[in-house]
C-alpha cells in the first residue's frame, strides 16, 4: 500500500488562539500518523487541545502552522470547493451535541449530505433508510430530533456521517452527553461500523470506555502528544487507569 497506508497525517501542527492580548497555544507541534481502517482515540483532559486537533484534522478550522494530509493531500493547498468536497465525501463528522438540523426528520438529516453530494433523490433516500436501519433506527425515520432520545439522536448523526461512504469518521466527544449505558452502545456501534465498513474512526474523547475498543490511544496534554499506546499495551493497564480516574 505504500504511502497510502496512512489516511491522515499531521506534521508540526500548531494552533494559536488570541484571547484579548494573550495568545494561547492550543496545539504545540503535533505529529500524528493514522492508519487506514484504524479506530483511534485521542484522549486528554478538557482544554488539552483534542477538540482543536479534531477541527484541524477535519478541515473545520485552519491551523496556525503545520500541515494536515488526508490521503496524502495537503489540506492547506485545497481551495474552498475542494475542501467542501473532502468534507462531503471523505470525512464524516459526529459531534458531542449531535448537531442535527432541528427542523428536519431523522431521514431528512441523513439524506442531506447525499444532496450536497449531488446524489439523485431516490438513491439518497434509499441510502438514508439503509443507514438508519444499520444504526437500529429503521422505525424512527420520520421523527424530528426533539422527538428522539440523546442516544437515538447520536445514532442519526452516525448514520448521517456515513451517508456518503467516507473513508474517515471524526467523532468529537460522541458520548459526552450520554449516560453510561447509551454511551457504551454508541461506542459499540462505532466499533462495529469500523470493523464492517472499514471506515477509519478518529475519536476525541475523555471517556475511558473508548479505550477498550480503540486500536490505538493518543494521549494529548497541553497541546502535545504525551504518548501513543497500542491496544496490546492498553489491555494490561486498564485496571490501573480506572483507579486513577
Amino acid at each position, binding site marked *: 500500500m505504500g504511502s*497510502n497506508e496512512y489516511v491522515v497525517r499531521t506534521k508540526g501542527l500548531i494552533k494559536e488562539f488570541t484571547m484579548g492580548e494573550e495568545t494561547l497555544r492550543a496545539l504545540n507541534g503535533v505529529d500524528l500518523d493514522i492508519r487506514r481502517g484504524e479506530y483511534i482515540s485521542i484522549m486528554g483532559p478538557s482544554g488539552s487541545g483534542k477538540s482543536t486537533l479534531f477541527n484541524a484534522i477535519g478541515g473545520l*478550522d485552519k491551523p496556525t502552522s503545520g500541515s494536515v494530509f488526508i*490521503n496524502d493531500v495537503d489540506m492547506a493547498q485545497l481551495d474552498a470547493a475542494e475542501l467542501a468536497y*473532502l468534507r462531503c465525501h471523505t470525512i464524516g463528522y459526529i459531534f458531542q451535541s449531535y*448537531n442535527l*438540523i432541528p427542523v428536519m426528520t431523522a431521514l431528512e438529516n441523513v439524506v442531506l449530505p447525499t444532496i*450536497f453530494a449531488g446524489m439523485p433523490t431516490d438513491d439518497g433516500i434509499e441510502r438514508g433508510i439503509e443507514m438508519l436501519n444499520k444504526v437500529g433506527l429503521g422505525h424512527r425515520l420520520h421523527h424530528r430530533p426533539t422527538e428522539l432520545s440523546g442516544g437515538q439522536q447520536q445514532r442519526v448523526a452516525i448514520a448521517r456521517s456515513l451517508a456518503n461512504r467516507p*473513508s474517515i469518521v471524526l467523532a468529537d466527544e460522541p458520548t459526552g452527553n450520554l449516560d453510561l449505558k447509551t454511551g457504551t452502545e454508541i461506542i459499540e456501534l462505532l466499533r462495529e461500523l469500523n470493523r464492517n465498513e472499514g471506515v477509519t474512526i478518529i475519536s476525541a474523547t475523555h471517556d475511558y470506555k473508548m479505550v477498550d475498543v480503540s486500536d490505538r490511544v493518543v494521549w494529548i496534554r497541553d497541546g502535545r502528544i504525551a504518548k501513543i499506546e497500542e491496544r496490546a499495551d492498553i489491555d494490561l493497564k486498564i485496571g490501573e487507569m480506572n483507579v486513577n480516574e
Partner: protein
Amino acid sequence: MSDQPIEQPQNVPGKVQKQVSLRFAKAWEITIKSIKIRLGRSLITAAGIALGIAFYSSVRAAGLFPSTAIGPEAIAAGHRQQWLAVMALMVCFVGIMNSMLMSVTERFKEIGTMKCLGALNRDIVMLFFLEAMMMGLTASFTGWLVGWLIVVVIHIFTGGFQPSFIAGSVMEMLLSTGIGVAITLMAAIPPAVRAAQMPPAIALRSSI
C-alpha cells in the same frame, strides 16, 4: 461488501475533486421545506416585515388623496405627510432588520453543520437568499395590501373615495414591495455570507 476495502476516487493520493454546487431545484425544495416547517417562526418574521410595510404603505396611500385643505394649511399637511412617510420607512427598516437578523443568526450552528456536510459557501448564501426573497416578497406584498385596504376602506366610509386613486396605487404597490424586499435582503444576506465564510468550527461554536 463488508470486508472489501473502501476504494473511492477521492482515495487516489494527491487528488481531490471539486464539490459541485447545489442545484437550484434542490435549493428551492429545501427553502420551501425550511419555511414550512418553521411556519410559526416564519410567520412571526413575515408579520414583522408586513407590519412595517403596512405602516409605510398606509401613509403613502393616504398621501394619494387630495387634501381638502387649502393655502398654507395644505402645505403644512403635505409636510406632515412626508414626515410621516419617512418615519414609517425608518420604523419598518428597523423592524425588518431585527426580525431577519434574528432569524439568520439563530441558525449559525445550522450553517456550520451544513458546511461539515459538504455545502459550499454559495449554497448557503443561495438558501438564505431564496428564503429572504420569498419571505420579503410575500410579506411586503401582504403588508402593502393591508395598509392600502385600510386607507381605501376609511375613505369609502368617509365618502372621499375617488376611482383615480386606484391608478396611483400600482406605483405604490411596486414601491412598497420593492422597499420591503430590499430591506429584507439587506438584513439577511450579510450575516448569511459572514456565517458561510467562517471556518465551520467557529460557526458551530457560536451560540445566541
